[in-house]
């Protein structure tokens, strides 16, 4: 799946073709299981993206990882979470009956819904959940406009 701008340049004119292609993208997004999963490089953990007026929060489910095994990068408004989940090798005599969990390398990239301030990014890992909080850039925050009276 390709990386698409998240409504950064909304078309104000009525354009049925653009709307159709938007619908097409939305359908693909639904069927491909959400944001941009790079399946070629392994598995893609589930994530949520929430935003309000001044911040964007990205929540990624990454159970059983070490902080050192998670990489985060931000470039051109795309946040990439990657890393590796290493399988814990315990006693060799143990026989594995069934495996449902994912191990190995993972990578996910998300086009952020607004411009962010790259100096104001916080990331924390707790209870197997990575939370990244990004402050929106001042220019992408909604502005209150005072109406002048004569």
């Amino acid at each position, binding site marked *: 799946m390709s990386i698409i701008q*998240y409504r950064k340049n909304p078309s104000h004119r009525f354009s049925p073709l653009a709307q159709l292609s938007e619908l097409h993208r939305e359908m693909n997004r639904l069927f491909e*299981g*959400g*944001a941009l999963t790079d399946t070629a490089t392994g598995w893609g953990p*589930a*994530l*949520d*993206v*929430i*935003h*309000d007026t001044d*911040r*964007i*929060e990205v*929540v990624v*489910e*990454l*159970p*059983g*990882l*070490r902080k050192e095994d998670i990489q985060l990068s931000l470039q051109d408004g795309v946040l990439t979470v990657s890393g590796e989940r290493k399988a*814990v090798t*315990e*006693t060799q*005599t*143990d*026989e*594995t*009956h*069934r*495996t*449902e*969990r*994912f191990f190995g390398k993972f990578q996910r990239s*998300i086009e952020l*819904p607004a411009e962010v301030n790259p100096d104001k990014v916080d990331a924390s*890992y707790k*209870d*197997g*959940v990575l939370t990244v909080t990004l402050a929106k850039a001042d220019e992408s925050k909604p502005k209150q406009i005072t109406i002048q009276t004569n």
Partner: protein
Amino acid sequence: MNTTAPIHENETTEGARYCTPKADFHSGPEGTRVELDLPGVTSDGLEITVEEQRLTIHGRRKNSEPVGDWVYQEIRPYDYRRVFSLANTIDTAKIKAELKDGVLNLHLPLAERVKPRRISVG
């Protein structure tokens, strides 16, 4: 898993208002080890009960009602639940559980009476 396995799925918790946590199952001479992914669950929100030979795992996510609008929502905001039937070869009184970084490690030891024993000839 077949019915002779020391642990098998007792009921399906898929659908409904639950998430079925993904699990791995390993067996060794000492018993069975189950690892379950429960991201977002702390020990306060985790309830493990054994009744007869029925093991129930119920995990509540930390309440984190998001402030704002969703752009993507892939994480199902429901509790985790999974129920297993244990063979009577497992000593349910000695089950141990550890929760770390959203992974639950369950140790289900074999009862002493079923463990292999060497019998010396007198």
